[in-house]
C-alpha cells in the first residue's frame, strides 16, 4: 500500500515535470534548447510509462 503511494507520488511528480518542460519548450526561442527540453520530456515520458501500473 505504502509502495503504491510512493509510486503514485513519483508518477505525479514526473508528469508535472513533463508538463513544465513542454511549457518551457513551447515558449523557448532557442531551437537547440527547445529540442533539449522536448527530448528531456520524452525521457520522462519513458519513465512515467514505466511507473504506471
Amino acid at each position, binding site marked *: 500500500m505504502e509502495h503504491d503511494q*510512493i*509510486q503514485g*507520488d*513519483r508518477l505525479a*511528480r*514526473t508528469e*508535472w*515535470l513533463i508538463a*513544465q*518542460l*513542454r511549457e*518551457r*519548450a513551447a515558449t523557448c526561442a532557442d531551437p*537547440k*534548447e527547445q*529540442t*533539449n*527540453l*522536448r*527530448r*528531456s*520530456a*520524452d*525521457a*520522462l*515520458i*519513458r*519513465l*512515467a*510509462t*514505466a*511507473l504506471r501500473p
Partner: protein
Amino acid sequence: MSTVTDPIQAALHQHNADLFASDVVGHPPQTLVEFLARHADAALAVSGADQTAWNGQIVEAGEGILGLAHWDGTLHLDRECILEPLRELYLRAGDPQSDAALIRYREALVTILHEQSHFLGPAGATQEASRVAFKQPGSRALEEGVAEAWSHANLDDYLLDLGIDDLAPGITEVTADPSYQAFVPAVLILTADLDHRAGLPPGTALHLLNRQTAEGQWPLVVDLAYTSSPLPSVVPPDLEPAIRLSLESTLREYFADLDTLEPHPRDYAAARSRTTAHQALAHLTTEIQSIHDVFAPDPTIPDRLRPTPASRHQPSTDPFHHAFAGLAPPGRPVPSSTTPSKPTRPSANAAALPTERGA
C-alpha cells in the same frame, strides 16, 4: 474504401502492414518505407547487440513527443522533426542539399538511432525486466546518457550502413549537438574512466553499455570497475556480490542526482554533470581503496590503527564503515535492497526544481 493520401501516413501504413519487408527490400534503402523496414537492422549491426525489443511497429507521435521507445516495443516518431525530414531526404535523394537541410536530416536520424538504442539488449533480455530496472535510482540518467552519447559517436557508421551518405551528400560533414546535457557529459567521463581502468580502447565501455538494457547497465559498470581493481585478488568470494552492490549503490546515488539538472540550460547542466561524474569517480576510487585496505592491510600500518572485525559493526565515520554499511555477514544471502550509507556530499543541484524521483 478510403485511400490514404498523406504520404507520411501512407508510408507508416505500408510499413506497419508489412512487418517483414526488411527481408525483401533492397540494400541500401531507396525509399522512406524501405528505410523504416531496415533502420533497426542497421542499429543492430552497428551496435553488435544480440537483439532488439522493437516490435516492428512505428506510429506518428502525439503529445509533443519527438521520439519514444515505448515499453510495448512500438517506436513513436514526430512528424515535423523526424518523419517529414526523412521523407524529404528520400524525395531529394542525390540532390545537393543546404547545410540546414543536412542538419535537419542528421538530427532526425540521430534521434531514431537513439530510440533504437533503447531497444537493444543482450540475448534473453526482456522489456519487463528493463522497465523494472529503469525505475531504479540512476538508471534513467545512465541509459539516456549512453543512448545519446553512443548514437552521436556512431551516427556516421549508421548512415554508411544505410547508404544515406550517398543519398544526402555532405551529411557526414555537418554536425548535430547532443541533447541530454544533464546526462551525456557524466556518461562520457564515466565510460572514459572505465576504459582507462580496464585498459580498454577508448569508446569500448560506452559501446558495451549501449548493448545492455537498464537491467544490465549498472552491473556492467561495476563489473568493469571491480575486475580492473585489486579487489578480486583479496576479497573473499562470498563477499564479492555485496561489495559489488555497494559500489553500484554509490555510483547510482550520484547519477540519480543528475535528474535535477534536466530543466536547466544546456551549458549549466553540462558543467554540473561533469562535476558530479568526477565526484562519483573519486568516491568510487576511495571506496575501492578502503575495501582493499580491509582485506589486504598495509603492513607498515600498526595493528592498533587497523579496524578490527568487531569494530566493523560499531557506528563509525571512517571509510571502512561506509564501504561496508548494509552488507550481509559472510555466508548470509545478500539482501537485494542493500543500500550502504554514504558520506554526506553536496547534491548536483540543491536549488533545482523538484525531480521526478520519489521520496
